[in-house]
């Protein structure tokens, strides 16, 4: 019986995350795979991340790709500095994190606002639509105002078909226009994690 209960828990969590696996586009590919391909088409070669379920496919694809550097961080602010260094060397990077990581980046984003380093961030949201963990709300609800206070432009994607056009817009705003842009992958898109 114990095992059956564990199975039920796993199944419930799986179902609650089914937003991850929704297909989009004519090819029937997962939108996460299309997103990885888009980033690579724009010559993004440094993938910095703090592990997060919402970015699992991007992280795994970057780890398996011999043409990119995948950088596991101990805290998200390391990634902001990493992307600045990549830019000094003429390379493009992306920072993948959960919404809670936005708070860890704030002072380091001085590099973006003061140094005008291009900065692309993808955030999987918590503390938002349908969240069941009260610890996630303080930072989740503060993501947009604190990033904006540091000069970061914030875009949101709420449906699978919105993700790639939004990230493609962000890629242009970052690497052509020299901005810092965060794309929020919302809980409407990803689904809320069950507890």
């Amino acid at each position: 019986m114990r095992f059956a209960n564990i199975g039920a828990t796993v199944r419930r969590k799986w179902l609650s995350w089914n937003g991850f696996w929704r297909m989009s586009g004519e090819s029937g590919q997962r939108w996460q795979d299309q997103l990885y391909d888009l980033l690579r088409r724009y010559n993004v070669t440094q993938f910095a991340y703090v592990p997060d379920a919402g970015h699992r496919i991007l992280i795994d694809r970057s780890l398996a790709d011999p043409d990119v550097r995948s950088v596991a961080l101990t805290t998200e602010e390391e990634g902001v500095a990493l992307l600045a260094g990549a830019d000094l060397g003429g390379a493009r990077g992306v920072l993948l994190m959960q919404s809670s990581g936005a708070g860890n980046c704030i002072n380091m984003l001085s590099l973006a606002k003061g140094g005008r380093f291009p900065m692309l961030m993808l955030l999987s949201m918590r503390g938002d639509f349908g969240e069941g963990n009260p610890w996630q709300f303080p930072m989740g609800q503060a993501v947009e105002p604190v990033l904006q206070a540091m000069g970061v432009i914030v875009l949101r994607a709420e449906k699978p078909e919105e993700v790639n056009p939004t990230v493609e817009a962000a890629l242009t705003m970052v690497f052509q226009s020299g901005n810092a842009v965060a794309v929020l992958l919302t809980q409407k898109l990803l689904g809320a994690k069950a507890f």
Partner: protein
Amino acid sequence: MPMRYPQGVDVAAAVAAGFVLDRCEAVPTLIGRAEDFLIVTGLAGTARDITALTHDSAQIYTMAGAMGGAAMIGLGLALARPDKRVLVATGDGEILMNVGALATIAVLNPANLSILVVDNGHYGETGWQKSHTSLGVDLEKIAIGSGIQRTRTIAQEAELAEGARVLREGNGTAFVVLRVAPAEPPSFKRNFDPAACRLRFRNALLGNG
């Protein structure tokens, strides 16, 4: 030129703990030909060391904020340019702010990255308060524990040549702690505009494209 100790610094305690080298001489000796490196510095002291050494040249990126970021900027640059040797020159306070970066760097272990910590055991820019390295914290041991395999602590003149070799050679990331006296760093006027310095660095390295 004799070292200039700021008022209020306990020189006797610093000497007793092995913080004796003059950074104005030890840093240039350790680095040697600065043109061989792309250099990222921390704030204040090391920014002044490297600016004076290179006359604020275009192959350096100095900081005056974003404390804790120097080592990771160096990592991003080293990964982007495996054909160049990257030197991060930073202070004890700056590296202490983000020691997790040493773990991140050790995991990747790029051979073209060297980290030089000029450790004076103090926060010189904010009134010469003692830093953790004056109070028992050993940055080389933190680097070793993080997984960086090529490490040294240099505290005497006779050790400088060995430190210089470690910074320039080897098949993995190097980490050198240079223990120096809590005395004034060199003085040299530098550009404080982070965006202008970014463009200067990129134009020199990449051209205008």
